């Protein structure tokens, strides 16, 4: 028998009697856990653990996003989601992983500024050239399975995007 909520096989079967009517509930392991049912003991624990881990991971990420806030202005990510407005420049660092997706989606996949900079473009141009080189080196390192070198290059790329010039390599 199929789960009431998806196409998987149901492992929890229950008849719920409320007043004069009775309804039958059939749920797979995943939906049974989500609905708070104890699982039957014949379900192999090895089958359940990855699902539980997945649920915990998703819920953990959601909780992290909900509670994450900007140290400079105190804006929470949840508050940002409601208005679409950030509170201060530091919010860009505080919500970087989530903002990367939002900005890239809104900007047709673009993830880096390539235009003018307050210093007249000299510094920005230097960073762009360096970034292009590091990205080429990173591709080469991954292709050659040089993972230690790839990790180092990733760190350098990350440092390049830091707003603090002191962290900028080169």
């Amino acid at each position, binding site marked *: 028998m199929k789960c009431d909520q998806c196409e998987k096989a149901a492992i929890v079967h229950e008849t719920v009697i409320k007043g004069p009517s009775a309804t039958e509930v059939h749920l797979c392991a995943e939906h049974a856990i989500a609905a708070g049912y104890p699982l039957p003991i014949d379900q192999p624990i090895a089958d359940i653990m990855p699902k539980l881990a997945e649920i915990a991971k998703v819920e953990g990420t959601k909780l992290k996003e909900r509670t994450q806030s900007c140290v400079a202005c105190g804006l929470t990510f949840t508050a940002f989601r409601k208005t679409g407005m*950030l509170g201060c420049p530091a919010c860009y660092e505080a919500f970087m992983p989530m903002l990367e997706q939002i900005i890239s989606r809104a900007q047709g996949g*673009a993830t880096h500024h390539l235009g003018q900079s307050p210093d007249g473009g000299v510094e920005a141009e230097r960073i762009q050239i360096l970034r292009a080189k590091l990205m080429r080196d990173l591709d080469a390192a991954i292709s050659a399975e040089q993972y230690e070198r790839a990790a180092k290059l990733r760190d350098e790329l990350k440092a390049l995007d830091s707003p603090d010039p002191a962290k900028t390599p080169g």
Partner: protein
Amino acid sequence: MNPAQPFSAAMSQIGPDCDVVVTSRVRLARNISGFPFLPRASNPVRQEILRVVRRAVDRCPRQVGANEGSEGGGGLRWIDLPSANSRDRILLSERHLVSRQFANAEGPRALALSTDEQSSVMVNEEDHLRIQSLCAGSRLPDAFESAFKLEHSLAETMSFSFHPRWGYLTACPTNVGSGIRMSAMLHLPGIVIMKQVDQVKRAARDLHVAVRGYYGEGSESIGDFFQFSNQNTLGSPEKQLLEEFHSVVLPRLIGYERDARVAAVARHHTRIMDIVHHALGNLISRYHQKADDATKDLSRVRFGVVMGLLPIDLSLVQRLLLQVQPAHLSIIDPRALEGDLMEREVRASLLRQAFAPPETEKG
């Protein structure tokens, strides 16, 4: 803004490709380093932002506020919005110098405006500064140049929030990067008559261009006027974004409209003549006119003028499109402030006088 000279605004002038393009605008979003963005800025902080921007504006060289070829000269005047009267605030939004939301908002905010009204800076709008340049017709490169000239001049006195990866930081993260928004207001009666609006909106979406109404974001199209603006602000140099919008997007949109006009006149000639002359008839004969109805009729007359179907000067139509708006109307005749009925009478009278021969006008 100078109510005594109400026709210096780009909205009331004509320029290149004016049969389709009414105005072109370039707007740059900037925030000052060290301050929170507007949503988290208290009124004292907003006052401090005004003070910092005003100091920078006062130090701008006089020629900075002037566009290439403009007659009015430069220099920026400071208009404190909370202390301006409501008519003047509406006047600014009718000239498309500020958004309606900004005109009616609360809290410390200002507009620094050049004498020729083509360059301006909105202070404490969605971002600390919205530096903009507005030109008549298809003149995006001119608007681009003067907006950046003003931006560079302001940057001499203040520093803008900038991130090496994200570029200029904005309150709304989707404006980040160059912070540049280029837009053109287009008159598209041909596309409307040929029922191609949805097709054009789809084409615009494919070109990463947003379509908005007569008064920008959140407004409806009135009189077949639509605003088109670039959506992408990140990942390309500013000049490339300008090149794409001015040399690829705009010519394509202008081409759609001109093709639609030719097809409309070829296939529905008598219907077009009827629409255009009926609108002119309304303007000549009505004794009460609502602002939106007047805009619609003027739009149809504009269509007739640019198609050579009506022997009327386009600059007259363009001027009237601005003058029939409530705040502008009240400058011409203060009786327009005496209630809706009187406003409609004043508007109808203005239009009759503009289009009818003087001897036919009675009372």
